[in-house]
């Protein structure tokens, strides 16, 4: 009897000698699922069998994968190469950062007189007063003497009493005596002047 056509025993690639390492079967799949299933199969080809997991996991993941926000470069990428400046995005300089440490304890005050002229404080200058700082000798302080505000250098008198020292020879030092009401309201930490 003459054998024609049909299966030839021993022909073709031995079963299981494919990229997956096990026998495969043909199967119809819905068009919409081609992409995720192909992607799954690609991973199967690459990964060790032990890490395949179940197809379901992969398919479910493909259907309801969570939204992942990707970083968006702020500069345009004309030649597919990101601007080297993207790593160095910084906000614009803000004078508040420069002048103010404790915003909750900081107050602004306008200078009206010339008593601190030689310390660089002129009328209409705005000074930054920080109440959270402990005053030390040598600081410019805003003090209250008998109910009146004054801005002067804080010094120490002969008897260990506080002295308020002006920065202008035309003005007198104020020696604080026990009979006076005295309080340091805050420490002057900076000043601002506008010219125009």
């Amino acid at each position, binding site marked *: 009897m003459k054998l024609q056509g049909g299966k030839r025993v021993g022909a073709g690639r031995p079963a299981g000698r494919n990229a997956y390492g096990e026998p495969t079967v043909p199967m119809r799949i819905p068009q919409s699922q081609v992409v995720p299933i192909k992607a799954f199969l690609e991973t199967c080809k690459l990964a060790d069998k032990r890490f395949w997991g179940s197809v379901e996991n992969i398919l479910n993941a493909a259907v309801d994968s969570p939204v992942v926000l990707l970083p968006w470069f702020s500069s345009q990428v004309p030649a597919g190469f990101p601007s080297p400046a993207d790593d160095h995005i910084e906000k614009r300089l803000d004078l508040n950062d420069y002048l103010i440490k404790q915003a*909750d*304890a900081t*107050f602004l*005050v306008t200078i009206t007189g010339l008593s601190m002229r030689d310390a660089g404080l002129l009328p209409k200058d705005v000074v930054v007063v920080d*109440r959270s700082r402990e005053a030390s000798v040598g600081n410019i302080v805003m003090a209250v003497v008998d109910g*009146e505000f004054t*801005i002067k250098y804080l010094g120490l008198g002969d008897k260990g009493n506080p002295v308020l020292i002006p920065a202008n020879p035309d003005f007198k030092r104020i020696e604080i005596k026990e009979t006076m009401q005295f309080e340091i309201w805050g420490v002057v930490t900076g000043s601002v002047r506008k010219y125009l």
Partner: protein
Amino acid sequence: MASLALVDVNNFYVSCELVFNPKLRGKPVVVLSNNDGCVVSRSSEAKRLGIKVGSPWFEVKKRCHNQGVIALSSNYALYADMSNRVMSILARFAPSCEVYSIDEAFLDLSGFSVKERHGYALSIKHTVLQWTGLPVCVGLGCSKTLAKLANSYAKQHDEHNGVFNLSSLPETVSDTVLKTLSAGDVWGIGRPLAAKLKALGIITAFDLKQASPALLRDQFSVLMARTIAELNGVSCMELEQVSPPRENVSTSRTFGVSVTSLQPLSEALVFYTTRAAEKARRQHALASAVSVYIQTSRFEQHHYASGCHTLALANPTNDSKQLAKISLAILRQIYKPGYRYQKAGVILSGLVPMSVGRQLDLFAVDDTGYRQSQKLMAVFDQINARFGRQTLKLASEGFNTPWQMKQAHKSPSYTTSWKQLLQVD
């Protein structure tokens, strides 16, 4: 055991004024409500003179003048800024913090050991005083009600240096403290309730603590039972860290002079409406209804008139222009000529968050009007935020504003206006 602290500023409005005007320290000072209507805050010296909160200014004016009492108009820009500073400082001290009013906040100090709490409360008090110049009292207890009560005790008894802890004491001792406080001192027990309790023989806070919750719940409400539980150290009210969005916003004022014609009344109402619309936009909410009311002075016995009307909106909005139109339409319905109107107000209610979306108008062709109005209002708000309130306004708000508030004795806005900073030589 839980430990809550109530921190509040003593005589808040007056204390804010004293920070910037040290000359007034040690003197009797009062702050008057909007339009210099009545006394709303008193220095301890003014309290000692027997001036009561809520006294109409015209009644006590002469007497205050004779006794050298200094009266100031309220300066809400200053108080709001000082309040924000205090709350921001307090928030540093505890993992959770509920801002309860403009001058008080609850802090959760449960994480600190019983021994540490007193010293910690003292450092809170010290820091707020040093940083802002405002004196505070701190009351501690294992429920909000006890923390409040401890706070009033600290206020009444200077020897405790402004800090009092009800939950660190043995119960017999804390009970003797409760016996010195009246039931009316307890949070949530107002004067009418205190009178009713008195009729039942419940006079002190201790009496209320001992009362039967079941019995009083039937007679009053479940809130009363809750208060009793809280007095017994069972915390029933948690800290509310985020205040729920308000369901309506309103703006109303008493006029500086009474208004007799429609024109100035319209201007005032448009002004109030734009203010309320701004508030709604700040909350990202749309109003579904507009109410307008106008009234004459209560003292006008023969010529008293008041009117109030509400319109529901087919399309919720927060557009100043649209809302102003609606307010004016309502005003024309309720206005009666020949009366001397003294007060007017606008309430925007049924606020819905913009994020929730809105019911579209069945008859509207498309939604571009809404989107354009949102854009316009955003620009409006930005300009006014940058260049100051009222930089851009509706012309119908008028320019002369004769109805504006009386604020004869207002201090400068020391912390919120460049032109009004404290001036020091």
